[in-house]
């Protein structure tokens, strides 16, 4: 049977991808950020999953204009890195695990999540920056990736509570997949940041650190944070944190926190990153 063995959460700031691609990881501005990922780069070598279900949001690259799905599962064999205005990131193609994706889609719909399936799309920094941070430079990504895109931009977005329930449903879906697979769920985006208006540059370190603490030990406390509260406390783009709840709920109750990292800033954003292993 397939099982979820671990989870990773990380911010997915595009400038981190650019710094990575341009070989700036040793520069004084970027070095402390990349150092925060040294742990996971080692950890993943011993814990390479067969499949990652990668929860992210599309940033007006493939979605958000003509169609705005609340939860959308990538269903192509593979996904190329999107050209977001400065050329495609030179990273490997993301390859899907279609059998698991099909099973998850089936089970999620049974669980009353009216999922959108996407037969063609490119994946942007939301998906590729976490892969680069965890796997470093690679000829090919060492596992299959099922992209799960969440609308966190155009209101109404889903609520944190709904994301939590989706995570629980993903957990149940993976558990019932007959093939032996080691699956991780990654939640990306956040932490506090606002990219617009006169409140641009907002960072709420106190909120972020409390979020990291509760996520590890009392995650259910987080699911009742309203969308309005995310906007007020963490900025208009800080609401991406609801995607971390999908990851956390998919892992089940007990997790062992292997790593926690927080740093301000990367570009306009507070960077947060955690690594969890499931117990049992």
């Amino acid at each position, binding site marked *: 049977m397939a099982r979820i063995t671990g989870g990773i959460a990380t911010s997915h700031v595009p400038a981190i991808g650019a710094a990575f691609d341009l070989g700036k990881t040793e520069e004084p501005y970027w070095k402390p950020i990349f150092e925060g990922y040294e742990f996971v780069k080692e950890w993943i070598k011993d814990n390479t999953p067969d499949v990652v279900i990668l929860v992210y949001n599309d940033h007006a690259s493939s979605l958000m204009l003509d169609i705005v799905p609340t939860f959308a599962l990538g269903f192509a064999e593979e996904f190329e890195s999107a*050209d977001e205005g400065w050329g495609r990131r030179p990273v490997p193609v993301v390859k899907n695990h279609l059998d698991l994706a099909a099973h998850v889609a089936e089970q999620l719909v049974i669980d009353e999540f009216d999922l959108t399936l996407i037969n063609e799309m490119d994946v942007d920094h939301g998906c590729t920056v976490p892969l680069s941070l965890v796997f470093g430079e690679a000829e090919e990504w060492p596992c299959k990736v099922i992209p799960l895109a969440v609308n966190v931009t155009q*209101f109404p977005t889903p609520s944190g509570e709904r994301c939590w329930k989706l995570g629980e449903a993903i957990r149940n879906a993976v558990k019932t997949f007959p093939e032996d697979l080691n699956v991780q769920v990654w939640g990306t985006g956040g932490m506090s940041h606002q990219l617009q208006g*006169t409140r641009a540059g907002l960072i709420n370190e106190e909120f972020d650190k409390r979020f990291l603490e509760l996520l590890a030990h009392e995650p259910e406390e987080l699911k009742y944070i309203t969308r*309005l509260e995310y906007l007020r406390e963490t900025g208009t783009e800080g609401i991406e944190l609801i995607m971390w709840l999908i990851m956390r709920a998919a892992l089940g109750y007990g997790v062992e926190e292997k790593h926690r990292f927080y740093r301000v800033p990367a570009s306009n954003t507070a960077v947060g990153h955690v690594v969890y292993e499931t117990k049992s």
Partner: protein
Amino acid sequence: MPRTRLYPLEDLEDIPGTKVFTARRSRQGYHLHKFCMSLMKEENRKEFKADERAYLDKFKMTEEQKEAVLERDLTRLLELGGNMYFLVKIASTDGWSALKAVSSMSGMSAEEYSQMMQSGGRSPEGLRSIRDKN
């Protein structure tokens, strides 16, 4: 029975200096955003750079939106239905960093803004609610 909302919808307009990207705003910005997304192709970026006005005229944007694009007035574009994830593609086409683009709306110079970020960012204190002034 419909479920009760956890907060009044109007409260989304109660955050200082912030335009929450609602479905209505998205509709207002639709053609502007169609232009922004066209900049994801190199040949379109070249065509836009060669004659910005002529390129913009290919889209069903309002005159105000076109002028704001020509002036790179992101604050105005937000008022006209824009969302930063689309607008940043204009900035990328210009070779601006996201930091520079975002700082242009903040009322600060790019240097001041960058310095503020390096010092921990902008505190939410006093910027949570227009009504409650907290």
